[in-house]
């Protein structure tokens, strides 16, 4: 009898705690109802890609020396370098260059190893096509620069979270010249060189010390 009552009691306790957890969960979802949407309304708004964004690869035909390093470092030997040896000048003559972005994985090895920096990453990521063969870009297509999100009048450019001013979570309505949170590498570098400067010329500390600080603040704000 007692055992049965204990069972019933435990069961009730379990049911009540389950209901409590349900209530907690409902409180969370209900709280989320009043938060603002965080979505980017894509064709009308776009995020500004970060500096190191690895988008479609840009190629400068005139810089290329047809060394084929890009082909060797590519995981699947993707770039096609079409050159002929000019017997007279004993130099390679580049005729065509192409990368198939339907196959490329945007690892950036080619960009990394290109000895003449003729390859570079762009921020272009809209590579949708009706035919995958149209993604095989030749040197003309590779030489085109993408439309920047910030300069496109049809697009409302939004900053990514890490690029927003300190304490701001919402990219809408942030002025374009508002500085991002934290300091850029140059600014950090400026503060690092500061202690070494007074050590060399101790007599001028009183006059020079405030100046970098002022300049630093000016750069931040």
């Amino acid at each position: 009898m007692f055992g049965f009552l204990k069972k019933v009691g435990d069961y009730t306790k379990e049911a009540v705690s389950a209901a409590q957890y349900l209530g907690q969960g409902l409180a969370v979802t209900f709280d989320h109802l009043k938060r603002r949407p965080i979505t980017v309304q894509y064709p009308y708004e776009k995020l500004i890609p970060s500096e190191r964004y690895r988008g479609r690869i840009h190629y400068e035909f005139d810089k290329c020396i047809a060394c084929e390093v890009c082909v060797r470092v590519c995981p699947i030997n993707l770039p096609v370098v079409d050159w002929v040896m000019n017997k007279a000048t004993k130099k390679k003559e580049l005729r065509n260059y192409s990368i198939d972005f339907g196959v490329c994985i945007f690892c950036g090895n080619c960009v990394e190893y290109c000895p003449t920096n003729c390859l570079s990453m762009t921020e272009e990521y809209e590579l949708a096509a009706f035919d995958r063969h149209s993604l095989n870009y030749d040197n003309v297509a590779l030489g085109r620069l993408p439309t920047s999100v910030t300069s496109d009048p049809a697009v409302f450019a939004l900053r990514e979270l890490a690029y927003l001013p300190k304490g701001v979570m919402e990219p809408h309505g942030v002025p374009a010249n508002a500085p991002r949170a934290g300091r850029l590498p140059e600014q950090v570098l400026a503060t690092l060189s500061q202690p070494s400067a007074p050590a060399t010329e101790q007599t001028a500390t009183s006059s020079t010390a405030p100046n970098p600080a002022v300049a630093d603040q000016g750069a931040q704000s």
Partner: protein
Amino acid sequence: METTALVSSGLDLQASFVDALQGLGLSPGAARLLWLPLPMVTVLVAAVVGVLVNVWLERKISAAVQQRIGPEYAGPLGVLQPMADGLKLVFKEDIIPARADGLLFTLGPVLVLVPVILSWLVVPFGQNLLISNVGVGIFLWISLSSIQPIGLLMSGYSSNNKYSLLGGLRAAAQSISYEIPLALAVLAIVLMSNSLSTVDIVNQQNGAGILSWNIWRQPVGFVIFWICALAECERLPFDLPEAEEELVAGYQTEYSGMKFALFYLGSYINLVLSALLVSVLYLGGWGFPVPVEWLAGWLGQSVDAPVVQMITATTGIVMTVLKAYLLVFFAILLRWTVPRVRIDQLLDLGWKFLLPIALVNLLVTAALKLAFPMAFGG
């Protein structure tokens, strides 16, 4: 019928309509015949519009919970999005898979939808604002809702697809195991109101406004009924029959176009219907939190005055719909709160938790009715 005569009859559109037509020189039979299709069409239209509102709410609330915007470009705030969805489904090609049973495949969605729509017969929006005050009202709904699993099983089996078959089987198992606690919860209500008629059940709750609603006397029954109703509608957390991660879309896998639209319509009409019935059974139906009779008395108006009758009827409809949609909102919120249960957990919950609790609830209600006949409808 007698009990309805005792309580103030309120707005009786049928009587007024028939009287008016008889005044024009029609025979009583003809006048009644002309009246007959009107409420049916009205309720059918109301049900479909209710579904459109429901779909829109579902998408908007889901979006808000997930901090999205949801449909926005079809009409203001995307209110026309459900229309666009429906229109798309109507114009889509109707496919019957090869080696599927064509007849059963077509019959399945019909068998799912028709009982749900028929159940609107007994949903009251006011004293006389329902298609038919059937004496066995709520029982009719329970028995109609047990036709649905046959349709689900039929469409699952005839699709000639393993996912459909599994989905259909799950749907049938789920419907059958949740119908019993549902019926027991309803039985406790029926015990208190001494009637199966939905109108009587609401009238019995409206003595003292919000205080006399059944939810205070039947809190456990309310929870059981709501859980079972969600399970019957195959809403999350009980959407196992169409669990997309496991079963593609369950019994709906092979359906497209108009037939899929029937399933879609059926599930949403069922949700609205369940919410309406919860509000009828537990939340005082069309009753205002303060009885309209009291308000009329305080304002020195007769309850039978035409204006008061109009206002009463309007508040009745508004209250019923409002309560139902609050419950729908709760169901949508629940959808994004609770994860889906496993099939064994589902059956465990149905048979080992809800059924015993519903039985105890029924017994306690019966005991309370004997002990306090005043409060529990002696």
